[in-house]
């Protein structure tokens, strides 16, 4: 049993309460994995959702397989352009900025990963990836939020779980406090001058402090605490470190703001951002083109983030995810259609990198899912669970992934145990 001393120190009453009444107690006792000596609440997970289904085969290219070239005469990345990783797989050339991370073993890829549900609908598959319950539509909350609900060792701050975007995504929806920030500088009340802004903020704060009840009361307290913290932070003055060069656009901005919050030490533990443009049905391109452009932006953003955080990356894991992969064979429009398994990237100090993880099923039609797609050999929940347990020190996994029993024997091995 690994209820640490910190539980009692930080949230004594709550922890004692949960000893008596929390049915999760048994689950925790049964799944007490705490391999890390480092306090888990310094550790941070950043999730990047590639919405639209990234073509895993052109991101982490199986260039050692002739079937890949046979099935994709117009859109395969030519052998001469692929950056070889292990003799069989290679990086898309536009991800070259990530090669040094691979070489320093802080970047891993998990291939043939995905949902056990067979849907090829973006809508359903994104829903399942975010709810963490493939095949079950009725789940009200997201798995990242459930992690926050059940891991009570980490102190809740207004910035514990932050999504960068205009709305709170499904993955962070739920009863644990979580915040959607579209623009760090504009977060809070808007007024023409700083003095008017401060006065308006104080007025609303007094209104809610005196008259709000229930969730309105707690949420407003969190909101005003966050506004205060951000005011001290002065986001407009932020300059990335080490010459980090974030790409223009939403993804670069989101990662820059995540880096900023991490360095400000405001208690950020789980960050989420999404990036669209991966649904490459038409003219996907190969070394250059549509997908190459998206990958270039992704690579540049991740490289800038890593450079900006510098030594701070020892406590950070960045995970890319996408709802499914794309067909092995190119379609008639020089693109690819909705498939099954894809590839996910895991990078950061705690990562056991320099390896393509997962069980590669092969590209032969007989080995494919329904004869057309890369088969799923790693349930994405096994990777998510591994990161929650080995990186963030989660203990209540059965509550995070209801109906699923994570098994360390099936963890892909992305995080140092």
């Amino acid at each position, binding site marked *: 049993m690994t209820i640490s001393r910190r539980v009692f120190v930080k949230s004594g009453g709550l922890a004692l309460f949960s000893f008596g009444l929390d049915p999760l107690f048994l689950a925790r006792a049964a799944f007490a994995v705490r391999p890390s000596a480092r306090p888990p609440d310094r550790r941070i997970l950043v999730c990047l959702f590639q919405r639209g289904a990234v073509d895993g085969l052109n991101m982490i290219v199986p260039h050692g397989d002739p079937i890949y070239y046979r099935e994709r005469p117009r859109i395969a990345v030519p052998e001469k352009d692929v950056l070889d990783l292990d003799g069989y797989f290679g990086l898309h050339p536009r991800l070259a900025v990530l090669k040094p991370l691979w070489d320093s073993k802080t970047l891993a890829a998990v291939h043939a990963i995905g949902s056990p549900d067979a849907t090829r609908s973006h*809508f359903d598959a994104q*829903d399942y990836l975010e709810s963490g319950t493939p095949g079950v*539509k*009725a789940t*009200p909350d997201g798995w990242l939020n459930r992690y926050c609900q059940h891991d009570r060792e980490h102190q809740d701050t*207004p910035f514990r779980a932050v999504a960068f975007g*205009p*709305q*709170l995504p*499904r993955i962070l*929806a*739920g*009863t644990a*406090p*979580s*915040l*959607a*920030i579209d623009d760090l500088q504009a*977060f*809070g*009340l*808007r*007024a023409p001058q700083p003095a008017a802004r401060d*006065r*308006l903020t104080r*007025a*609303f704060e*007094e*209104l*809610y402090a*005196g*008259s*709000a*009840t*229930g*969730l*309105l*009361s707690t*949420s*407003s307290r*969190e*909101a005003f605490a*966050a*506004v205060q913290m951000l005011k001290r932070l002065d986001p407009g003055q932020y300059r990335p470190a080490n010459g980090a060069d974030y790409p223009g656009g939403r993804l670069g901005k989101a990662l820059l703001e995540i880096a900023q919050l991490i360095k400000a030490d405001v208690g950020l533990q789980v960050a989420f951002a999404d990036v669209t443009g991966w649904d490459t049905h038409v003219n996907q391109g190969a070394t250059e083109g549509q997908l190459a452009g998206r990958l270039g932006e992704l690579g540049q953003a991740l490289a800038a983030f890593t450079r900006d955080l510098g030594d701070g990356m020892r406590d950070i894991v960045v995970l890319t995810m996408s709802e499914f992969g794309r067909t092995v064979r190119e379609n008639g429009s020089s693109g690819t259609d909705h498939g099954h398994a894809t590839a996910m990237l895991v990078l950061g100090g705690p990562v056991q990198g320099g390896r393509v993880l997962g069980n590669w099923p092969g590209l032969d039609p007989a080995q494919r899912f329904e004869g057309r797609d890369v088969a799923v050999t790693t349930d994405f929940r096994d990777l998510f669970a591994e990161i929650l347990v080995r990186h963030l020190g989660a203990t209540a996994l059965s509550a995070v992934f209801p109906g699923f029993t994570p098994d360390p024997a099936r963890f892909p091995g992305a995080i140092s145990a």
Partner: protein
Amino acid sequence: MRAKVKTPLEFVVSAARAVAAEPDTSSRLAQVVARLGEPLYLHVAPDGYPEREAAWVNSGALLDRMNAAVALAAGKLPGVTVVLDSIVSAGDADQLIGVLNEKILGGTMSENTKQVLRRQLAGISDPMQARALALGLMIGGPEFQRQ
């Protein structure tokens, strides 16, 4: 009574009605509803928009409501035209608070809210500005968030 928190749609519609706002024919007001967290006809799961307040109330969403309320009272919310004279004429603070309490909150304004409004209005000499501030605070404040 008044236990449930309004959904974003309920909040925007009731706020617009409270100030007799005239919506234009564009989708801009619907976009405000979407920004507050309820994109119309785009709910992901097939079970309909939730009625639980936890689905709508979080710190970011609450700040968004306050901003929308202030913008509405200032006549700057996209998609609607507001003529505040039709609600309340600009008068002294107590009169303003009294009328707005009746018209916007059905007379349920808490003593705390009255005091906060009085303090806020005390420093403002321009009656138009005072009226917009009082309305913005009231619509963005806690009482107005409940059904």
